[in-house]
């Protein structure tokens, strides 16, 4: 190689070339991190941006006549289609239901579109459809319209789904990331990281045995129970791709506040911590599908926490930190030893580390 004979000369040390703008889509663009945000900001917003889209909520809040409607859509490209604790059908229903619930809406109706790969067994499609039906019933929503397309063999992973949903936002409810206020108490509804670890445990090349199952669940009922305590919840977010870290960073950025976390207060199941340990991942960045994080005014925090713990999907809710005026736009965790670290927005998908 060219530099094989070069002496160790500090002045001549060379550095790698920059890899700046990716001119093709990479997996990280769908990872819910910085790359996703850039795609939104640099491609979608300039093309069809508007005031509602700029809100960057999990769902859009719309006024139609006297009603306030939440509207949301999401696509599901999970592999494998079925995993411990659920499958693509459960995710497609619960994901959209939860996006609606995060604006305080009561989820009502969904659409569901299938993109099927030529050759996929009908039994698989039937199994997915049945799980959609069961999940919709459990979430208290109806699937009222749909669509089916087929792509050639080799152009899809069997089944892709898209669901959209609408729901009514109750009077007096105004939940959005911009409302985070210093002093708000940050509550997470249960143990984190289970969905992401359950998926990884069955991924080709990473397989491991684990009792961790996906936490996929509809959160409409939990949100309703919280709203029964006070309509004045400031922010709700379901920390899916990018995990808790991504959600908290989005909220900090949108509201111009800081978030102070306590590492030891974040509920992490032992098996999730163990899997993260040998894969070199941080549980804060691992996906959830049945959890929410809430920013609640301090005066209501005790009562909201109590209401959450009384609900099956919030039984292990915990206070993990607070919203602060310091370090605006940043999430900072106090470590178990008493130091601090910045919890940054993940770049893209989290990768298992060698070292």
């Amino acid at each position, binding site marked *: 190689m060219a530099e094989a004979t070069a002496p*160790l000369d500090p002045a001549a*040390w060379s550095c790698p*070339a*920059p890899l700046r703008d990716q001119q093709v889509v990479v997996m990280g663009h769908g990872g819910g991190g*910085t790359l996703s945000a850039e795609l939104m900001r640099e491609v979608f917003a300039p093309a069809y941006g508007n005031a509602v889209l700029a809100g960057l909520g999990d769902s859009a809040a719309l006024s139609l006549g006297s009603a306030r409607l939440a509207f949301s859509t999401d696509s599901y490209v999970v592999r494998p289609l079925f995993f411990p604790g659920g499958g693509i059908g459960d995710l497609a229903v619960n994901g959209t239901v939860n996006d609606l619930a995060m604006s305080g809406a009561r989820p009502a109706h969904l659409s569901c579109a299938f993109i099927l790969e030529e050759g996929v067994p009908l039994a698989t499609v039937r199994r997915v459809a049945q799980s959609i039906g069961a999940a919709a019933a459990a979430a208290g929503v109806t699937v009222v319209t749909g669509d089916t397309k087929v792509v050639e063999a080799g152009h899809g992973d069997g089944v892709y789904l898209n669901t959209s949903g609408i729901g009514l936002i109750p009077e007096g409810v105004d939940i959005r990331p911009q409302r985070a206020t210093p002093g708000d*108490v940050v509550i997470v509804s249960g143990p984190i990281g289970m969905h992401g670890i359950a998926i990884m445990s069955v991924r080709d090349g990473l397989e491991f045995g684990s009792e961790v199952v996906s936490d996929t669940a509809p959160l409409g009922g939990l949100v309703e129970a919280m709203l029964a305590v006070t309509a004045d919840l400031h922010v709700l977010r379901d920390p899916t791709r990018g995990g808790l870290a991504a959600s908290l960073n989005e909220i900090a950025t949108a509201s111009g506040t800081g978030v102070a976390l306590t590492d030891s207060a974040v509920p992490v199941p032992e098996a999730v911590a163990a899997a993260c340990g040998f894969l070199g991942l941080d549980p804060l960045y691992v996906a959830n599908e049945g959890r929410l994080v809430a920013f609640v005014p301090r005066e209501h925090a005790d009562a909201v926490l109590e209401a959450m713990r009384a609900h099956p999907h919030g039984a292990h809710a*915990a206070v993990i930190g607070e919203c602060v005026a310091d370090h605006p736009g*940043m999430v900072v965790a106090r470590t178990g030893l008493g130091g601090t670290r910045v919890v940054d927005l993940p770049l893209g998908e989290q990768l298992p580390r060698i*070292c």
Partner: protein
Amino acid sequence: MKYIQEFNDPDLARRLLEDIHATATRPWAMMEVCGGQTHSIIRHGIDQLLPDTVELIHGPGCPVCVTPLEVIDKALEIASRPGVVFCSFGDMLRVPGTDRDLFRVRGEGGDVRVVYSPLDALDIARRNPDRQVVFFGIGFETTAPANAMTVHQARRQGLRNFSLLVSHVRVPPAIEAIMDAPECRVQAFLAAGHVCSVMGTTEYPSLAERYRVPIVVTGFEPLDILEGVRRVVRQLERGEHRVENAYPRAVRAEGNPGALRMIEEVFEVSDRAWRGIGTIPRSGWRLAEAYRDFDAEYRFDVTGVRTRESALCRSGEVLQGLIKPNECEAFGTTCTPRTPLGATMVSSEGACAAYYLYRRLAAAPAPAAPEEASIVG
């Protein structure tokens, strides 16, 4: 988890810290060689808890950061070929070659797969006899036994469709290179515990003697790192320069004899370029003659890849501990994890990324501690 939880205990950490604070009377600069230790230090905020006089210099022990550009470019070239399944540890996918990375190759249709172990790549080769499966065999001494065993098994099983793209590096020559650099500020080393699990500690006494630096074999949990620092500080304060093992639960003086035999069988020592640093004599391993058939560089004709490095970044100086990441002009401005100028920023283990991720706070006001106790019932 047993043997992890206990070594994270805050009360014991406080005892170790108090001892370090009581012992350190002068400024000392020590290098933790290993990127895993850097990660742990920043992840737990350990550097903020040490006395101001104790400086941790983040070393070049991140195999992802130091894998030479030329090898990355070869990896990109091989991974782009039709019929190839290119398997890699996850954190290599984001490391930039001259004009792209493995993510980009995958985006362009290359079959690039993340695996946990090289044995997973061997499995893929077994199940896909019509495809050429290549594993990106990078790493320090810790990873060498795994990659060696994998090639060994491939040969024994006659798996003709498996090969290894090797870029292995060794710690002791790197320590020499660091100490021989004219501006070297390093006064002691926290040696990488898991490297020593394999290699043992016999390579170190001569280095400690020659450069008159304490070398303390150190583990990775917070208490392990604090104990390593404590022992280094104690030696420095006394003017000693011994090799100590502060990670005895995982390190024996003789290392792992079986692993050493396998390394000996499969690899041979070679000169190796370290990205951002330069070529360090005898600092690497390549596949031995008997295993040439399994060397991806030979199986795929990848001579003539043209490489080009940016001149802006000072990652070489960062890796040598000559400057702190935030002393680089590009740090946090033109060079961020999203737009890395150097490999030290790319890897989550890299010194710059570690700084960027966890020390960005230094520019912001200190946070108030959450008062969760008043709320949780």
